[in-house]
């Protein structure tokens, strides 16, 4: 289960139970995420544009 929020924007999202365990597992042992790799590579363009 997850308790989260609608507008207005809340700053804290609370994960519980299996969601929390899955989240921490991913944090500790991240799987390859090609879409994220592509996004971060594109974000680097702003560093180069400085």
């Amino acid at each position, binding site marked *: 289960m997850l308790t989260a*929020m609608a507008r207005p924007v809340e700053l*804290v*999202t*609370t994960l519980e139970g299996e969601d929390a365990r899955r989240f*921490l597992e991913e944090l500790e042992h991240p799987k390859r*995420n*090609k*879409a994220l790799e592509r996004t971060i590579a594109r*974000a680097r363009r702003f*560093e180069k544009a400085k």
Partner: protein
Amino acid sequence: MHNPYSPFNDISRIAGNVDLSAFDCGDPDFNDYIMNEAYIDQQENFSVTYIGFIGGKPAAFLSLVAAAYKTASLDRTELGKYSYRSVPAVKIARVAVDNAFKGKGCGRVLIEYAFYIAKKVRQLVGCRLVVTDALPERIGWYEGFGFKLSSQHVKAENRKNYPMHATLLPDGR
């Protein structure tokens, strides 16, 4: 700052002298926010809003806040090597594109800009996630950037917003 792959001539923090009166993304709440609240929130240090300009006109905006994911109801032995109950994040609070500039990749570039900012934040105070509360019709769009739904249960709950997160890897990876 100009990124040659960006539709924007410039992306900069919202300033008090920017005329946003003609901004219309089609969502009255977002229009009201950018016209009347974003600059005040920024002055009060609750958020920072970045405006993407095309031809000198405000074409899109991105509001970011400091946020956290908390792992409740787990005992200490379940926390693994990260013995923190909160994980620091940069949150995409709002992103919107003026109707006149839709279809130019403005939204995509602002999300990428959020990751650029998150990487800078990570170097200053620590940050492990980029997170957002996605509208239902935007879940697939965010997944295209590498975001994942933070709960497997929320889709069945008919929510207005769906928490999503993208995990930044350690050491600049």
